[in-house]
């Protein structure tokens, strides 16, 4: 398994790089899992999912926090639960989605 992280200043193009890189790896036949860990998630657009599908993705972290501490699933089960198909050999898990805004 190859694990790659893409970093840079906000606006540098890292999401575009991550998304295109993921698409090209998937097109080579590799099974690709992408993780959008950005607080302003939009990796799905660079994967080719389209705007509506991307902004319809839920945040795994928020859901799991709401469900409370009794989480007995394996990480693979969590991925399978929250991952969306983004193309052939390509899935995406979005870590965060800020739907509610509260002070503090």
């Amino acid at each position, binding site marked *: 398994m*190859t694990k790659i992280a893409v970093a*840079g200043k906000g606006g540098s*193009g890292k*999401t575009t790089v991550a998304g295109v890189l993921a698409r090209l790896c998937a097109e080579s036949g*590799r099974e*690709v899992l*992408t*993780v959008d860990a950005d607080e302003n998630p939009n990796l799905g657009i660079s994967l080719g999912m389209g705007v509506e599908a991307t902004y319809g993705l839920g945040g795994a972290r928020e859901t799991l926090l709401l469900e409370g501490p009794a989480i007995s699933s394996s990480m693979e089960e969590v991925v399978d639960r929250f991952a969306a198909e983004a193309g052939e050999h390509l899935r995406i898990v979005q870590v965060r989605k800020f739907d509610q805004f509260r002070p503090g």
Partner: protein
Amino acid sequence: MLAALEDKPGRVVIVDLGGGVMTVARGDESQIDALVVVVEPYPRSAEVGRRLLEMAAAKGITRRVIVANKVTGPEDLVAIREWLGADADIVIPEDSGVSGADKAGASPVDHAPASNAVDALRQLATSLLV
């Protein structure tokens, strides 16, 4: 999270980190095989890139790839070399195909498949999957 995933042969996991340095600063270096650092050819972007590379080296992340993005000419690469102390491994030119994809809400792979940007990232994919 990455450490808890099954180590499936052939699987590739790509994480799009938040902008800035804190995600690497707080991250577990043992979880990744390669850190791709994207920099634009101007000081504020390059400084973040420099700090990311420094942090990654200190954390023992041995494979660090510098991607110079939105490059308009050789002077940009000279500047990046001066700011980072290293040459870019992958050079992505300023590309109307990418900006067009952004405006269309599409992936450059679909919107501009023959663009120089997609070609450059194909080189990156090949090098990372060896």
